[in-house]
């Protein structure tokens, strides 16, 4: 395979589209959450303003090297994940740098940002950050288990580790989606998905009323702005993986937007309905509901 330089431009274009889409979509989901509480919530463009303001703050302080690096780690986790996911199936422009074994790489990248955050938050020295990180790591590790099992099931089912081929196998009608050909694994994966989205009932990491916002407690100005940027890229990239693996991928941008929105909305819906789990409760919940489903899905394949 020859490397074409134009691909870099295409990848940047993907990044640009995803950032804008993510900014608007997360604001929209927040508005939907506000409507559940009978409020109107933030304006749809609020995320842009927050971002400009945080980049425009005049002073910032540091707690050490890792404090600098953590937002960078996090952002590279998000961007890296996006870069290796074939965003639009069948499009030369937007398949990015996906290759034969990208599924394994994606699994790794999903975890990458959390680890970077753990180092940075540890260095910030705030007790809430340390508490949040220890909770977050145990919970994300646990939520990763059903998801990983589901990914293995899908890889076995289609006999490939390439996301593009998995999407290709699901083309030709809704009934070809993994959702219908292997529903048990998809259910397990969606349980894992809930756990990694930092929304209630699994938002113990941030827990606004308890350990105020957790890991990023000490982060401010540009550091926070970098993390906010990542917070709109990373979920979209992660949802794109789910879309590719289980929901037939997308052949055009509008299809991508709609599918990502609904998959994202799934976690938001669960979030507004259910109260927060404690960390031992959520781990037990994943053990009881997520892991057996994942194993069952694997066995059925």
């Amino acid at each position, binding site marked *: 395979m020859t490397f074409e330089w134009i691909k870099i431009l295409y990848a940047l274009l993907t990044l640009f589209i995803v950032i804008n889409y993510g900014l608007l979509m997360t604001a929209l989901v927040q508005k939907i959450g506000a409507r559940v509480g009978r409020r109107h*919530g933030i304006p749809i463009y609020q995320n842009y303003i927050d971002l400009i303001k945080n980049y425009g703050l005049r002073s910032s302080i540091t707690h050490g090297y890792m404090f600098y690096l953590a937002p960078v780690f996090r952002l590279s986790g998000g961007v890296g994940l996006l870069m290796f996911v074939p965003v639009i199936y069948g499009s030369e422009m937007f398949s990015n740098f996906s290759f034969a074994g990208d599924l394994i790489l994606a699994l790794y990248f999903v975890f990458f940002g959390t680890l970077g955050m753990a180092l940075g938050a540890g260095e910030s020295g705030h007790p809430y950050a340390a508490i949040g990180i220890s909770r977050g790591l145990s919970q994300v590790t646990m939520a990763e288990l059903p998801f990983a099992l589901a990914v293995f099931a899908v890889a076995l089912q289609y006999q490939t580790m390439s996301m593009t081929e998995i999407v290709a196998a699901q083309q030709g009608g809704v009934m070809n989606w993994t959702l219908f050909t292997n529903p048990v694994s998809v259910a397990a994966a969606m349980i894992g998905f809930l756990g990694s989205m930092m929304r209630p009932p699994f938002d113990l990491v941030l827990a606004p009323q308890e350990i105020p916002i957790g890991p990023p407690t000490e982060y401010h100005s540009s550091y926070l702005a970098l993390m906010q940027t990542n917070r709109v890229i990373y979920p979209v990239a992660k949802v794109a993986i789910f879309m590719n693996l289980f929901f037939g991928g997308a052949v055009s941008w509008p299809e991508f937007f709609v599918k990502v929105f609904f998959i994202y909305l799934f976690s938001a819906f669960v979030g507004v309905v259910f109260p927060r789990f404690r960390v031992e409760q959520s781990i037990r919940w994943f053990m009881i509901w997520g892991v057996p489903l994942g194993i069952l899905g694997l066995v059925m394949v």
Partner: protein
Amino acid sequence: MKDELKKRTIKGPDGFEFEVDPLHDYYCDAPPKVHPPVYVKIVEDLFNWARSESIWILGFGTGCGAIEMRPLMTPRFDAYRYGVQWRPTPRQSNLFIISGYLSVKTLKRVIRSYEQMQSPKYVIGLGSCTINGGMYWDSYNTIKKLDEYLPVDLYIAGCMPRPEALLKGFEDLKKIIRAGEGEGANHYAENFDWYKANQKKVINDWDMPDYNW
């Protein structure tokens, strides 16, 4: 000063002895700097607009006025519509609402929180207590004029002001910020000695560095 804040020698569990100076080791005590608007005017204007449209409030209620801030989050007033949000940590907030009377004990915490906020930062004095002491005018334990201890950008008078008054206050603050006049942090840095002298006059058990962030 409390014993645990004094400079002392500590013997570690492995028998190794080392010196600890809490005020010096645990705080950064460099004085505040003036951060001028260095950018081209149009960029500074853009930033000022963004700052005015994205006001993050430190969720710290000092007095009875705190109860007037809560309804702003509810469906009836819903301040989120105006880009006003609450942050639980001083690092990420831009606006400090001193909500009502301020006892000397709270003033200490307020100063520490204020100094941990990142520039540019704004202060709103809520209620008459922050202007002249209000009904606590002859109290031995509350401060009377907030302006002597922190640079205040805006007062919202009343005892207590209704949430509507707060919303109006936010709109006025937005105008101040957009006009480029919300320079309280720089004012604080320029007149640092004066503010510190005033603060130390009322706080008797001063057991923190002069500037802690």
